[in-house]
């Protein structure tokens, strides 16, 4: 594919800021504005402002929207309250993960409406799957990818920054909840979600309002240390927080149980749908995970300074026992860290003798429980 990259509604803003841009899933996105480490640290200690407009929004409406989503996704969508959100997944019939998703329940019971947010790299797949799976349900799947720009304010200062720009009741907006409101005069769906391990908000707005909202947020946030933040620090932030990334920790070759995320699969659902796509395969995967797990997702912390990267072999006693899925220098820990799938017998925290093969050199690594970083509440 040699099509021109897609530009977000904030493209001119990024260029004016001198951002280093990168192609991500066909989108031209800001990788970093200055130092990605400074951006990372700002999100941990103050706040960062992200353009996440590449994420794929898909709206589901209709009387049988719940039944349909319960059939199409692995979670119990029927148990999501109005104004709440849920982390869930869509799998293939063989149980392989097609994407991880956040589903927001927007509509009241008399007018069911859900917004499914997919990863940019999988948005078309998710749209195609949902469109295929809706047959037979009185529900409608709508491609809303171009209907929204998405800005995220993340970090401990984010509630204060947002409060100065909205009358919405943020104090009662819980983690994984969303409510419609107005921010800086712009209509927005205000969600308390994120991918950084910090408190924060994601703001879904009309693309035409994105620049105005960005400007207002920067004006309010800059005095308390908020900086524009790019995808590079988003990756190190989510890695420290132990959050999986599709294409790395999650792939079509793995079921949610293989990824240590079996808890997102609900075999009992609140709806008339008595099955869901992938159910039989996932039941078998759940059994296997209980009795004979092949590999487990663990954290690795370097003793040296060389950085493990995705695909590097994890070794013990001269044998390959796993593979790194994500690795980066951790600004918070000051050491290289990685997530890796390793054989179950080497997966316990503190397991001795584990290393990563970094371009031929076996560098010692400590096996730790995930996440690497958890914020103090």
């Amino acid at each position, binding site marked *: 594919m040699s099509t021109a990259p897609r530009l977000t509604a904030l493209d001119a803003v990024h260029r004016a800021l001198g951002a280093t841009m990168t192609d991500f899933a066909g989108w031209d996105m800001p990788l970093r504005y200055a130092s990605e480490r400074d951006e990372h640290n700002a999100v941990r200690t103050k706040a960062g402002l992200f353009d996440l407009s590449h994420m794929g929004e898909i709206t589901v409406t209709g009387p049988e929207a719940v039944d349909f989503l319960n059939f199409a996704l692995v979670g119990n969508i029927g148990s999501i309250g109005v104004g709440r959100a849920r982390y869930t997944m869509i799998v293939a019939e063989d149980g392989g993960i097609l994407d991880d998703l956040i589903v927001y329940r927007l509509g009241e019971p008399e007018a069911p409406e859900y917004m499914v947010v997919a990863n940019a790299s999988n948005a078309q797949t998710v749209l195609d799957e949902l469109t295929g799976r809706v047959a037979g349900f009185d529900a409608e799947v709508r491609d809303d990818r171009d209907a929204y720009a998405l800005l995220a304010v993340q970090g401990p200062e984010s509630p204060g920054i947002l409060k100065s720009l909205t009358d919405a009741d943020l104090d009662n907006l819980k983690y994984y909840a969303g409510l419609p409101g107005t921010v800086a005069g712009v209509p927005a769906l205000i969600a308390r979600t994120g991918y950084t391990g910090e408190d924060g908000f994601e703001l879904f707005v009309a693309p035409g309002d994105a620049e105005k909202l960005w400007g207002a947020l920067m004006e309010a946030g800059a005095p308390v240390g908020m900086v524009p933040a790019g995808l590079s620090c988003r990756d*190190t932030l989510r890695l420290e927080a132990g959050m999986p990334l599709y294409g790395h920790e999650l792939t079509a070759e793995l079921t949610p149980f293989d990824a240590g995320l079996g808890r997102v699969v609900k075999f009992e659902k609140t709806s008339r749908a008595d099955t869901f796509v992938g159910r039989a395969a996932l039941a078998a995967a759940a059994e296997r995970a209980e009795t004979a797990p092949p590999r487990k997702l663990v954290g690795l912390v370097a003793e040296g300074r060389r950085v493990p990267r995705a695909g590097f072999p994890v070794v013990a006693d001269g044998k390959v026992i796993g593979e790194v899925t994500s690795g980066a220098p951790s600004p918070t820990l000051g050491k290289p860290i990685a997530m890796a799938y390793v054989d179950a017998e080497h997966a316990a925290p503190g397991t001795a003798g584990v290393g990563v093969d970094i371009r031929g050199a076996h560098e010692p690594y400590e096996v730790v429980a995930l996440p690497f970083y958890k914020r103090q509440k």
Partner: protein
Amino acid sequence: MSNPQQLRYSKEHEWLSAAEEGVSTIGITEHAANALGDVVFVQLPEVGDTVTAGETCGELESTKSVSDLYSPVNGEVVAANQDVVDDPSLVNSAPFEGGWLFKVRITDEPDDLLSADEYTAFAAG
């Protein structure tokens, strides 16, 4: 960004100072440092090593990637910058000064080293 006039440059984005008593200081350009992002790990050749123009002699690791370090000239390494090993961010903050990497007693150099203006045009292209 401006590339100092008194330096010469390689197409691998290294800079090379004018030789003093046959010894030149070598580093990577600001353009290269910006492209890498925050440098977190530097492996330099050791004093006494022989380096060859265009061949890898170390590595630079940034948040996103690892890159080979090349020598722009042939020669013997006479110094390696321990400060940059201890604090790799010097490569980003002062690529032409405190972020220098190593010094070489030159035995030979390729004839395709660039002037500052030539390098500026090369890096922009």
